[in-house]
């Protein structure tokens, strides 16, 4: 793409802002049980942070996610979701019936943990896919 070097101001801003992005993503993910939020939103925020770095530090971003790693994230994230479903099946429940997992005594809490698990998977998947799509649409390497 364009070969101009990143400006110092932008570079500095991004360095400052990225940690907050990451923390905010985790907050959105974990707090999805109590407020608007959840896996998709967290994934998008994570993806945006990666994309932002790529945009600003264009040719060689110093931090981020390569395309191959993003593909792995996408696959494993989605698989985590489906895998939890398979686990519940292995424990004798119907698919995605988190209540059967041996994680605690109170069913509602176990279900909440199961929900958290799949939300993490969703986060990984969404982040991976969006990074991949951006990466590819950006053009040849």
């Amino acid at each position, binding site marked *: 793409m364009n070969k101009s070097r990143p400006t110092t101001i932008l570079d500095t801003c991004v360095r400052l802002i990225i940690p907050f992005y990451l923390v905010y993503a985790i907050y959105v993910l974990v707090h999805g049980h109590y*407020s608007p939020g*959840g896996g998709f939103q967290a994934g998008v925020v994570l993806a945006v942070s990666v994309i932002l770095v790529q945009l600003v530090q264009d040719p060689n971003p110093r931090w981020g996610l390569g395309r191959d790693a993003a593909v792995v994230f*996408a696959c494993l994230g989605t698989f985590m979701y489906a895998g939890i479903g398979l686990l519940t099946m292995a424990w004798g429940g119907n698919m995605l019936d988190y209540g059967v997992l041996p994680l605690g005594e109170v069913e*509602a809490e176990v*279900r909440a943990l199961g929900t958290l698990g799949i939300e993490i998977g969703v986060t990984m998947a*969404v982040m991976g896919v969006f990074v991949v799509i951006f990466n590819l649409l950006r053009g040849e390497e």
Partner: protein
Amino acid sequence: MTRKLGYLSLVLLAALFIYVSLDLPPTGDPHSPPATHVSPRYIEKAYKETGAANMVTAVLADYRGYDTLGETVVVFTAGVATLLLLEGAFKFKKR
């Protein structure tokens, strides 16, 4: 000519939707079927049954968790589709 007919049919389409919408429950009606048939259980029991105070999350991840799996798979499909369409194309060009 065909263009004008097309515009006309679009107007008719809008009129049709508006005409039919008169029979829909008005916005915000607390006694409409969507408000009274399935959703009360979500609202009343979600926290007890799933441990999530956010009912949307409860429905999304638990009651209709399988839909969400499908949704994630849609995203995944989009990713793989893009990879299939663009990654190979770049390789092609280099050769």
